[in-house]
């Protein structure tokens, strides 16, 4: 009797295992057919980055779904020879998360700049999700390999929350590629995406609030970041300007835009909570306060160093049409971003070099 019972459990178990195995194989075949993904090995957004002396960088030639990297390890196509290189430096907002393939703003900016008089510029998207603007060693390397003439700097202030000081001058430690279960087992990754996509927003907000509560049980929550944080941000911006100029290139500073355009009503609370989930130690309104102070710092640094400023935070409209979440652009938002930058360059045509000859300084 017991043996019969056990046999039946073994049968159920092996069929269950076979079912799971089939699902995993199906997931791998689908990835291979849709994205030319390898059948074996891990395949997720985390596999396209690798540890580097600058923390982490894109893996040359890597691809994942709509994201593909060129041979330099930057998102997008190979820079076309004979063109003037311009860099777009920033974090995930610049890297592009939600836009259609080739819909991220550096790609659209390149198209816009090259539209009137034939192809002359490469806009190289050197952004890395989560990178702080003060990682100038990463920027130095990008300037060296690209001999870029202009750098669009779109900093993300939130990356300074909880950080002691400026990043500039600090030696980065390589960030190990930490592949979790959802990176290694394709089915787990797909299921987690499916669940996230279908959990109703009110439930998701409650889950996020619970997660924030768990994270801050033993912490004191800040209403606003200390002045030292904004100072660190300011010092890093100064440092970026200095390093870019050392390479004979010209920086263009952009203020940081958010979904909220500076103000948030009760209807925005769920989205603010979603944002805060990444920085639980800072209260929701503290995030908006940081944005305002950080953008003031950008304006100050631009003025003090005679750097062209593009006030994206002022010009980008608020709302879901332009933002897919709290800070990341939708397709329309990326298009508007490219439009804003192009308009600023048209208004001040001397900023963009007209020839490929270096403006000065070494490579």
């Amino acid at each position, binding site marked *: 009797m017991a043996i019969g019972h056990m046999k039946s459990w073994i049968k159920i178990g092996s*069929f269950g295992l*076979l*079912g*799971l195995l*089939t*699902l995993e194989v*199906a*997931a791998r075949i*689908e990835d291979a057919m849709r994205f030319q993904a390898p059948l074996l090995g891990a395949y997720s957004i985390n596999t396209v980055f690798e540890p580097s002396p600058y923390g982490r960088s894109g893996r040359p030639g890597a691809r994942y779904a709509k994201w593909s990297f060129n041979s330099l390890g930057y998102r997008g196509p190979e820079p076309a020879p004979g063109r003037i290189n311009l860099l777009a430096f920033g974090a995930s907002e610049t890297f592009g998360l939600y836009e259609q393939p080739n819909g991220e703003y550096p790609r659209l900016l390149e198209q816009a700049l090259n539209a009137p008089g034939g192809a002359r510029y490469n806009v190289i998207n050197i952004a890395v999700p989560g990178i702080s603007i003060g990682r100038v060693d990463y920027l130095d390397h990008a300037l060296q390999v690209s001999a870029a003439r202009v750098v669009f700097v779109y900093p993300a202030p939130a990356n300074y929350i909880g950080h002691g000081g400026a990043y500039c001058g600090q030696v980065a430690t390589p960030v190990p590629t930490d592949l979790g279960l959802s990176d290694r087992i394709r089915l787990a990754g*797909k*299921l987690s995406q*499916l669940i996230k996509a*279908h959990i109703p927003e009110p439930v998701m907000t409650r889950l996020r609030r619970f997660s924030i509560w768990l994270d801050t049980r033993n912490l004191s929550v800040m209403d606003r970041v200390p002045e030292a944080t904004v100072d660190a941000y300011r010092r890093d911006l100064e440092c970026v300007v200095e390093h870019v100029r050392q390479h004979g290139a010209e920086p263009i500073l952009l203020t940081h835009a958010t979904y909220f355009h500076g103000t948030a009503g009760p209807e925005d609370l769920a989205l603010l909570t979603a944002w805060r989930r990444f920085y639980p130690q800072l209260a929701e309104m503290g995030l908006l306060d940081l944005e305002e102070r950080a953008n003031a710092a950008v304006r100050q640094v631009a003025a003090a160093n005679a750097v062209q400023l593009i006030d994206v935070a002022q010009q980008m409209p608020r709302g879901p049409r332009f933002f897919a979440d709290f800070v990341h652009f939708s397709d329309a938002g990326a298009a508007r971003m490219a439009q804003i930058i192009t308009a600023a360059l048209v208004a001040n045509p001397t900023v963009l070099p007209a020839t490929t000859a270096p403006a000065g300084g070494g490579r």
Partner: protein
Amino acid sequence: MLFNSFEFLLVFLPLVLLVYFLLPHRGQNVWLVIASCVFYASWDWRFLLPLICTTTLDYWVSRRLEHLSFTQAPREQRRRYLVISLVANLGLLGFFKYCNFFIASAAQLLHALGMDVPLPALNIILPVAISFYTFQAMSYTIDVYRGELHATRSFWDFFLAVLYFPHLVAGPIQRAATLLPQVCNPRRIERHRVVDGLHLMLWGYFKKVYIADNLSPIVNHVFAQGSASGGATVLGVLAFAFQIYGDFSGYTDIARGVAKVMGFDFVLNFNLPYFATNPADFWKRWHISLSSWLRDYVYKSLGGNRGGTARTYRNLMITMLLGGLWHGAAWNFVLWGCFHGAILVVHRASQRALAAIGSVFGSLPWAWAAIRILCMFVLTCYGWLLFRATSLRQVFEMTRALAHPGQGLDGPLFAQVGLIVAPLLLVQVLQWRAGELQFGRIAWIPAPLKVIAYALMVYAILFLGGAPQSFVYFQF
């Protein structure tokens, strides 16, 4: 609340089942009435009002009929009550569904005659499922009138039989004779029935989410064009043939599966319809609950095949025309019904000739069967063109385009349709060959292969489905 929505699958159904399994029989019925009201009211709570009115009236009429039958009252008196029920049900259906159609048609006719009479269209919202529940309620009073069924004493049992959420919105059209006893008597929850129910649900979701929802944008694209090329028409019609089958039979399977898990047995509504060898065979396989309803309550009431050849043909044409009109208030549905009536008549008239041709094949009966299946499929597909077209002009344009079926054929899109439909065809060929509709019960397929097939089905539902669409038959 759609069967393919997460709120149904993850909240409504688990909650309903959980409470259902904990309750005794009468409690289960009360719970199902509440759940069905919530389900139906999720579209619009006002839709409940006509439903409550018709069921109350039909309950009262059937009780009166039962009483009159018991007291052996004159037939004329009983007939009066039946007429009340029929007028009320058909009047309700006519008002909500056909009023504007007839007003618009009258206006067009008057315009064609040179009289421009302004006939205002009424602002009527068509209650979801009205065609289904009026037919179900009518069949109950007709059966009681005919003495084929005893009227139930319990209003709530009758109300539940009509309102029961799995079949309410798009069938299968349940006859009271089969469903009421299941409502009145305690139901048995058995493991093999639950497994069968889950199988039906899985297969239904596969047909809806993977087949129908993936074909839907292709079909919409083709029929959105005023006039399509021959190749596009062929592609669109072929895709629609499988979309509507996947959509409607998928819904039915989910409904039957949910009901089975709760211990109810619903009638079979689809039996491999594209394997039909002739029009009569098709209607024994497609939307069986409607075709048998029309046969029993319309065709037979008209005299069926008892009055000679001409009357039989007339009765077939009238029945199919009404069947077409049941689907919607539009001339293309009328045309679709007429088309099916016509092919039924032609098939009936040419049976001898067909038998003679069949005898030529002698030792190759399978070849003759294959030819007949193919011919019937082509005819069915042309019927779907009439059904799906957005206007009579489009019917005309697309029919003309079919003279050049290869013109403008989009190869990759055709391959995409093939890729979507291939798993369905494969399973159906297996079902047809084995004579077994439940894939899991086909004996010669090894169990591990079945597990792999089920896992692939789950994968397709979860990750390869098209953008969620409403069920096509909800509009009827």
